């Protein structure tokens, strides 16, 4: 069974069609990348998938159920977690408290149990040292990792990552790739929106290319990146 299926999803903002008749699906345990030039509607797709706003038409089927109209907190309860392109940590909460918040909201556990579980998650993603730090004092990659840890704290089955590697150096990108591969081995499905080709090549089993809200190519990284349509979308007509 497909874990997630999008059927002709459309979203317009005023006169701008951000996403137009988009179909794709993802199997359980798969990693796919959404790529495309700026403004091609990648983040809009993630926003619809995570319930920030509903699509104008089309439907989203998650594990056989129609979840098109669900709100973001309801989607989180059934296992869809996301990170933001511009990190939105809780600035007044310590790193560990942010992860604990995700745990206690989604599971019926006491604060003490949540604290130990949060420590486990943080040591897995490599933030154990920064446990008691407040987000403004974290480095840029650590804030991105915290964003990821907070998403993981909701025990997701489908993870939506919105440019998790934006602004990282190539060493940090490699670390982040290893981290995502590690997370993936738990059996999560992951959708990544990314510009860093290094990461897209290393991680994704399938790539979906968007341009002006429409899907122009889909397939493995070798096939897609040679596709003349994709080259045209990125570099313009020859």
């Amino acid at each position, binding site marked *: 069974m497909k874990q997630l299926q999008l059927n002709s999803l459309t979203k317009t903002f005023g006169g701008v069609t951000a996403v137009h008749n988009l179909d794709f699906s993802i199997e359980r345990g798969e990693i796919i990348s959404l790529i495309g030039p700026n403004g091609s509607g990648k983040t809009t797709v993630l926003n619809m998938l995570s319930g*920030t706003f509903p699509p104008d038409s089309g439907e989203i089927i998650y594990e056989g159920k129609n979840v098109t109209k669900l709100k973001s*907190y309801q989607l*989180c*309860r059934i296992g869809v977690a996301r990170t933001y392109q511009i990190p939105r940590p*809780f600035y007044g909460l310590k790193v560990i408290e942010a992860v604990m*918040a*995700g745990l206690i909201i*989604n599971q019926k556990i006491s*604060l003490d149990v949540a604290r130990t579980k949060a420590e486990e998650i943080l040591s897995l993603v490599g933030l154990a040292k920064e446990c008691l730090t407040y987000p403004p004092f974290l480095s840029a990659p650590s804030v991105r990792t915290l964003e990821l840890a907070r998403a993981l704290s909701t025990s997701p089955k489908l993870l939506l990552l919105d440019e998790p590697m934006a602004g990282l150096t190539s060493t940090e990108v490699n670390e982040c790739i290893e981290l995502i591969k590690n997370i993936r081995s738990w059996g999560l499905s992951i959708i990544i929106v990314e510009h860093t080709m290094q990461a897209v090549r290393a991680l994704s089993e399938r790539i979906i290319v968007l341009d002006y809200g429409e899907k122009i190519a889909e397939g493995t990284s070798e096939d897609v990146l040679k596709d003349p349509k994709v080259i045209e979308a990125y570099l313009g007509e020859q």
Partner: protein
Amino acid sequence: MNFALSAFKKRGWIWILIALFLFSLPLFMNEMYLKILFNIAVWAIITLGFDMLLTKCGLLSLGHSFFYASGAYFSAYAQLFNFHLIPSILIAGLGTALIALPLGLITLKLRGFYFAMATLGLAEIAHLSIRALVLFGGDVGLWLSSVYSIETLYIVAMVALCVTLFICYIIENSKFGLKIKTISMDEGAAKTIGLNTARYKLYTFLFSTFLAGIGGGLAVSEHTVLLPSAFLSSSVSFKMIMATVIGGMGAIPGQLIGAAFVISTEAIFAMYITDVKFIIFGLILIVVILFFPAGIYGGIYRFWLSYSLRKRKKA
């Protein structure tokens, strides 16, 4: 509950001493000062609730005067129907929360500035309609038949304050507290980690209005006259904002300091023209915001922190 117990074991005797001292004050204190202390206790209860809504949910209610007055009316009518003091105050709190429920369902959909405007509008509508349409006694107000001694009122207010402080302390360190803290920081992000923010905002709103109602009920029992101009005017809401900001937003001791500060300043200037007090409050507010952005408590806390750090470095 474990953390509450362990905190109590650590410094419990100090709290017991303070409580004993405060509860024994009626034995030797002048009635005028007792009245001021009573008012401080009442306002501490109100600002604790007001601050929780403001700093935990990020909602500035400019209409809390309405809930304060609603508590006063509930308590006044309960006493007119021969209810005793304590039941009438509980009726004030519960009745106010009951009224707040539909209002919260409507207004909590709004955010930030719009919520503040909606609640301000609400309070003004209630104020003007009670005075103009002669509802609930109109401009003349209600006159209570039962008169309680200031000693009784003081003890009841102190007990209410202790219970409120205890509950606030529990909330501060509980799962509920952590959940609502995320709302004030980033409501969208709180939703994406699965929090039904609308519901938690409503719970906090109800708790906050419950405390405002309790405060109103206590205050009217002391005044024995319920004048709409004294209870419903927007200056009551502004007094709450001032107490919270001057004392220190987001900290429980800050609310106690703020309430004590506002009430005692008011008592000092009550001897002169009453309009002077708002000029003084305004000036103090500007000074506090400029020099202690985290309020008096925040200022003291920062000073203590740097002092203890310096001491540790030397040692």
